[in-house]
């Protein structure tokens, strides 16, 4: 008797490449203005923010910066008293920008290495959403050689090629019970690559008003032969073979419009509006090399909307050596309620920032900034898992960068 076929259903694993992971920290000057300033700043980081502005740099420079992104989420299940917090994790996105080319010339070349997407959340193995996610760490590193040309004294145009290396590492509990009473676990990790480009124009009006338009293409990152490891009871090992997987992660395109103008001889105001084409993120599909009755390829709906953000900042030159900055911003989330999940407990968010640049010498600048992003509380029921509750997230991102000019 008891002729039974075991068929455990392994819910599909999840990944994020969402708003929640996008904390733009490429230039600490822009961070100090909550992300505004693409039209205002003409420096190495224009490789990222406004490639058309790059050719307007007089000399050359190299900037190295890093941030400490602290992503703190909390969750309370509906009708429960318990509040669960993500563990304290610091993600260190970094950026390096360098330019090359003759001084005061009609062209400039540059290269940027930066991490436009990345994050680390660790909910642990003892929270109501553990069968959705234990931890996730991901980073997309973009390598972008760029060329920029001055068409006229006021008008610059530029573009670059983007090569992306994506790294992802996540785990989730599997609802099978080990002999010691704990749950099984799936661990997925892998690297992938993708390609894209960016383009931009930058225009100075006579009265020092500057305009910047830039476009960054989507980058579809293909994860190939990632490792899928399963910790399950030995009797189920054959159903959960350690195998490899392929997946595709579309990083969205974005279109940015920036404007800056002087409010006085010492004060500049900059504003940026960014449209992010997240609607390409329709689903996340995992293709396992070895399938079993319980380990099937999975397809998880994401159905993202497009996202939009608006940022405005003030840049105040107090004296020759010190510039102070502050900014505020607002971001509309691309994640719809039923698709909010522990990797992206996203919602509309407000941002506030402050920062400064201090000229250490003719050659060296030190820039530091701090941005706080508050993702508003959101009460949702996830369509796939049924997990129902309230998420709230704060993101703190202090950062520092050092520039050498010649």
């Amino acid at each position, binding site marked *: *008797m008891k002729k039974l076929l075991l068929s455990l259903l392994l819910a599909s694993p999840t990944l994020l490449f969402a708003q929640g992971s996008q904390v733009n920290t490429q230039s600490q000057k822009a961070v100090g203005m909550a992300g505004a300033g693409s039209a205002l700043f003409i420096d190495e980081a224009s490789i990222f923010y406004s490639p058309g502005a790059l050719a307007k740099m007089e000399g050359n420079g190299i900037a190295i910066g890093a941030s400490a992104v602290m992503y703190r989420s909390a969750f309370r299940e509906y009708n429960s008293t318990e509040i669960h917090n993500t563990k304290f994790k610091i993600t260190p996105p970094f950026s390096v920008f360098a330019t090359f080319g003759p001084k005061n010339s009609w062209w400039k070349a540059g290269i940027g290495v930066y991490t436009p997407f990345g994050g680390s959340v660790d909910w642990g193995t003892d929270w109501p959403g553990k069968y*959705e996610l234990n931890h996730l760490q991901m980073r997309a590193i973009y390598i972008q050689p760029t060329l920029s040309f001055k068409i006229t004294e006021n008008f610059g145009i530029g573009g670059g090629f983007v090569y992306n290396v994506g790294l992802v590492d996540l785990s989730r509990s599997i609802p099978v019970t*080990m002999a010691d009473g704990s749950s099984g676990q799936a661990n997925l990790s892998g690297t992938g690559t993708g390609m894209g480009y960016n383009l931009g124009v930058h225009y100075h009006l006579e009265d020092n008003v500057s305009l910047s338009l830039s476009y960054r293409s989507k980058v579809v990152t293909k994860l190939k032969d990632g490792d899928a490891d399963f910790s399950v009871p030995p009797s189920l090992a054959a159903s959960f073979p350690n195998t490899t997987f392929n997946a595709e992660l579309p990083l969205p395109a974005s279109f940015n419009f920036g404007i800056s103008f002087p409010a006085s001889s010492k004060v500049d105001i900059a504003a940026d509006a960014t449209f992010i084409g997240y609607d390409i993120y329709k689903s996340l599909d995992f293709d396992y090399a070895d399938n079993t009755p319980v380990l099937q390829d999975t397809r998880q709906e994401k159905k993202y909307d497009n996202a939009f953000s608006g940022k405005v900042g003030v840049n105040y030159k*107090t004296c020759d050596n010190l510039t102070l900055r502050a900014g505020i911003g607002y971001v509309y989330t691309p994640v719809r309620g039923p698709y909010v999940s522990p990797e992206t407990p996203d919602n509309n968010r407000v941002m506030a920032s402050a920062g400064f640049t201090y000229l250490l010498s003719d050659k060296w600048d030190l820039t530091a900034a701090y941005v706080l992003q508050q993702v508003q509380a959101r009460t949702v029921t996830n369509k796939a898992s049924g997990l129902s509750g309230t998420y709230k997230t704060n993101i703190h991102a202090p950062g520092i960068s050092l520039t050498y000019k010649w």
Partner: protein
Amino acid sequence: MKRSKNTIKVYLGIISLSLTTYSCAPEIDSFESSSGTNADFSKYIAIGNSLTAGFADGGLYLEGQQVAFPNLIAEQLKSVGGGNFNSPFFSEEQRNGSGYLQLKSLTDGQPVMEQVTSNLAYREAGKLTRYTSEIQNYGVPGMRVDLAYVPLFGALNIYFERLLPEAEVGAKSYFDFVTTRNHSFFSFWLGNNDVLGYAMNGAYETPGDPTTTFTSVTDFTNRYGNFINTLTSNQQKGVVATIPDVTAIPFFTTVTTARLKAGVEASSNGVYKEIYISTASGPRVATAEDLFTLSFPTDTLGKASSGIPGYGLIIQNPLHDRFVIDKDEVAEIAGRVNAFNTVIKQLAENKQLAVADAHAYLNKVKTTGISYNGININATFIQGNAFSLDGIHLTPIGNALMANLFIDAINAKYNARVPKVDATKYRGVKYP
């Protein structure tokens, strides 16, 4: 230069201020619990059978007792004025209690089970270690509505016997034992065994075995009604639960006619293709609507019985009535369950008691399954997560979901806000 230093200080001040204001974890509004109206949770007692006791995997043992749904409810009631809730736990040294089943291996996907025989709690053969301190979980495996009034049952049922002082064994009925506890609130889930005892015996009343009696609706109505009237004599409130369909549990849905037929056909090289059963209207071929129990001894199939070969495989030697619930018996049992549930709901309505509709809930678990926070819960044996290895009783996660069903009922009836149990903390069936 001096000025800029001061300005930096101001900025650093603002930054550190905002860091302390928002530092670390974001704050979410906390859950406001409330005891609502009319209900007083200060002394909650749980009355019921094996489900209330935390019986699982074919035995009563400490881990199961600790996650019994009333214990989980009591924990949640603490935030709304609930008091102490003692249970007749086995000691750590005797944690395996009566002994229980565990999964030894999976061989070609078939479960192989073994009995846990260490750290048992027998004080002598057939008698469990006593627990006679004051308790609030009065769950007694095997308890029935009809036998709750029979003092002698205390001497026959090892789980009831261990709760009674020596002098009261066989002298005090379960009804008298539990209705004198000055409770302020109660959960009451009896009646399952008044049909299950009969159903598990193949819808067959074994002469002389009162645990296989098929309790009549009249008896049930009188005795259940008397029990509830007594428990509410001081206007106490409580929650009662309906009786699940026997077809909702894997004990009756795992060994199917199709599986038996396939096994017989394979092992006889196609000579035998059908299973023959005894019914009230004579022997006939088993169909998909006839149910076999999980304890059905498949190795007796085809053997000689009473001198006739081919037991169960030929019409001249059909399976004994005890091993099958034929479709007429299934309908008879379902009708009785429905009649009992009508009585329960009506009584609850009259007495203003909450109703945990376990009948509807377990039917939903069986038909569509439930998706709970990424776990699929259904009535499939072993991997369905809801039912333990005996195919009848709940797993720890099944108990947690049952506790939430009761809490939902309490909240709805008494406008209370009792917090829910996080069922993901509790396990399903353990795999080797």
